[in-house]
């Protein structure tokens, strides 16, 4: 370790660290949102809901279809969107996912409730395979579609400047601009009068014109990039900011539901002891349904935001990777523990971006598991959970 330390630290670029930490938090927010679904279901049923990732996938498809309905098809030229459209999509995804979650629980998990947990687990895997492969037959996935970005009015990003670029660099941009503009205009004028030629296929005579345009443009671009990269700043994408904010709001609502309502108390009771809760007059079935509604709706919200605000491509395997990572996040935080899931999710996001920041992006997906194993060896119940003796 001591030998490795200087080697590991050598190539690190501390200027990007703040931005990477923000990236990590934003990444973790989605993991946390999905992890909540895993952890809640686990809390009441002691079941790893392997189909949760597929519920998430169906949420993304719902968002896709609603966006078509709203007039933002793949080929549409619609450009005017508003937050209302996003809210409609969000609501639709959450509703559909909640419904699907309840259906899965009713038909696949409830009949298994009195049998061994591993049998329920296999049923969950079966449902997951069914939705993945069956979905591929009926849902558009060839080519994998994505939601028209025009439906999202909040594109682009802003830069929080911590240390600005030097004035000399900024001046260089100003100096390069006029030359580039003149050269570009000259070449554009030439092209306008010669329709059969393009930037890459010009007659010999026009080559100096083209090269001038190119070279001045390259100079300008270089100067601009120097400004953009010389200081320390944090680029914040609006879309990710919205995701983070929405996730926080949803988590606060969830906390309120679980901690301060009667239903939430019943849920905690069921989670604590299934049979005693039933004896105390808690309607266990309705509580479990409620749990699936909440957990699946959160997944739906995450899926919609991922597909719309981050522009992820949708396929029937959309939920596979986030599902596994969120599951790891849930276990990391202590499965069954709601704050644990959030903590686990954020930690996973941070761990991943940190590893990428250190230059090991090829191992980014493995690091989640390494962190998990290390944490579990030190604290077998997860960060906030408590280890209990369970039988498979």
């Amino acid at each position, binding site marked *: 370790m001591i030998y490795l330390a200087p080697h590991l630290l050598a190539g690190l*670029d501390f*200027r*990007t660290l703040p*931005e*990477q930490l923000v*990236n*990590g938090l*934003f*990444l973790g927010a989605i993991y946390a949102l999905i992890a909540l679904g895993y952890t809640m279901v686990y809390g009441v049923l002691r079941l790893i809901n392997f189909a949760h990732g597929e519920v998430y996938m169906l949420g993304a498809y719902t968002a896709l279809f609603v966006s078509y309905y709203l007039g933002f098809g*793949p*080929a549409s030229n619609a450009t005017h969107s508003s937050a209302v459209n996003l809210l409609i999509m969000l609501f639709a995804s959450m509703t559909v996912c909640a419904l699907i979650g309840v259906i899965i629980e009713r038909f696949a998990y409830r009949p298994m409730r009195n049998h061994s947990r591993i049998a329920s687990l296999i049923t969950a895997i079966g449902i997951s395979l069914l939705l993945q*492969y069956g979905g*591929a037959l009926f849902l558009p*996935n*060839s*080519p*994998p*579609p*994505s939601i*028209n*970005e025009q439906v999202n009015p909040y*594109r*682009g*990003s802003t*830069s929080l400047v911590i240390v600005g670029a030097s004035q000399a660099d900024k001046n260089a941009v100003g100096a390069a601009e006029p030359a580039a503009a003149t050269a570009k205009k000259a070449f554009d004028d030439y092209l306008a009068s010669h329709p059969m030629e*393009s930037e*890459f*296929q010009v007659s010999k005579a026009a080559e100096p014109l083209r090269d001038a345009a*190119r*070279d001045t443009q*390259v100079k300008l*671009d*270089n100067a*601009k*990039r120097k400004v*953009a*990269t010389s200081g320390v700043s944090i*680029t914040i*994408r609006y*879309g*990710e900011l919205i995701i983070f904010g929405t996730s926080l709001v949803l988590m606060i609502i969830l906390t309120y539901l679980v901690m301060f309502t009667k239903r939430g108390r019943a849920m905690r009771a069921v989670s604590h002891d299934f049979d005693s809760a039933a004896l105390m007059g808690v309607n266990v079935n309705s509580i479990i349904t409620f749990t699936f509604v909440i957990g699946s709706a959160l997944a739906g919200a995450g899926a919609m935001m*991922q597909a719309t605000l*981050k*522009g*992820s*491509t949708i*396929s029937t*395997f*959309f939920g*596979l*990777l986030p599902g596994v990572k969120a599951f790891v996040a849930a276990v990391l935080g202590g499965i069954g523990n709601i704050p644990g899931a959030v903590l686990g999710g954020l930690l996973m996001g941070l761990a*991943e*971006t940190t590893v*990428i*920041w250190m*230059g090991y*992006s*090829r191992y*980014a*997906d493995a690091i989640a598991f390494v962190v998990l194993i290390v944490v579990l060896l030190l604290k077998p119940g997860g960060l906030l959970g408590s280890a209990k003796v369970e039988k498979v």
Partner: protein
Amino acid sequence: MLGLHSHWWWNRLNFTKDKFFKLALATVAVAGLIGCGSGGSDTSAGTTTGGTDKPADGGNAKKRPEMTAAGNTAKGDEILIGLVASQNGDLRPWGVDCIAGAQLAVDEFNKANGIPGKKVVLRIGDSASKPEQGKSAAEKLIGDGVLAIVGEVASGITAQMAEPAFEKGIPDVAVGATKTTLTDIGNNVFRVCYTDAFQGPVMANFAYNELKLRNVALMTDKKQPYSVGLSESFKATFEKLGGKIVDEQFYESPQTQFAAQLTNVKAKNPDGLFMSGYFPETGPMAKQAKEAGLNVKMMGGDGWDSSEILNTGGEAILGQFFCNHYNNLEDRPEVKDFLSKWKAAYPKNPVPATTMGALGYDAVALVCDALKRSKSLDSKALRDAIDDTENFKGVSGNITLKGNGGNPPKRAIVVKLTPQGQAFAKAYEPGDIKN
């Protein structure tokens, strides 16, 4: 710490000492038996060893092992052609497209009465995006009596399929497998696409000479051999030309969150970004790069080719370049013809979803063309006919397999993405690129 203080293994050994002795005895006995038996069983091992004496990796020797087995012969009035493609799993979009293109070629051939009195029938085997399943599918098709196999889209699966095909004497025409060493497996392996050793250098040349880029960063999909190979060949040529690869970041499909990788890339201040993966990932990547403030030229390979790329990549992908086999707007008759036929056959998806539509069509059309020239309707004659293919006018360009060891030298087109589709930027003939 590990809770091993009880020395349970010692207890165990002591407990079973005599048993161990006897077990060792039994093992020796069994080993002796096998030793005696191996004389007889050597032949059984030998038959399965068939295709192992392949040439060394990456050898320049064009001499490919020759297939010796008899292969299949057409029976009755049906000529079976096998197609292995992914109908399930994460390569499904490419597989389904490939099947659609292949079916189109077969229907067209039969309509034109290509082999008088006989009908070409396409048999499809699902590889489920997995090499071992692809091999099972190929074995099944060969058992069903196909004369030739077409496929697969991915190199790893093709390599697995090509081996049983070699042992049984069945030609295999790969659709989109670009791994350069793939055709070394045997003289039964052909492809209709160009190799990694061509596409990467094309883009490197284009980036260096046309776009005047000097500092390029790479984004590689570590899970897809296609992407890894393409990045490697791009890197090699670009550095040879004098450019600098400032950074290489990795991701794993179907991952679509690249913020952290892009932040790293941005800090290295590149003037170009080469994204060698497939469009479901590179589209969102372009969007996120733009949002990260990376105003650089982005480039990619034929994995970008899709009817969906403009939607997947949004505004960020406009004005970026990639290397393609053909161009939808091109006015070559083959392309126009193919696109209109496709539109008529598949009104729901009026243009091929991925580049495999055209390549699948070409591969099957090439096999059908060879059938016409084949001396007899059996695998061996068909292989020779395929090997003799000269100047076959495919949608993806002219294909000449004669004397090329299975790898047709093909033209590559660099296209620029515009709101209307793919605008022609520059064409590279096989001779233009010197490795």
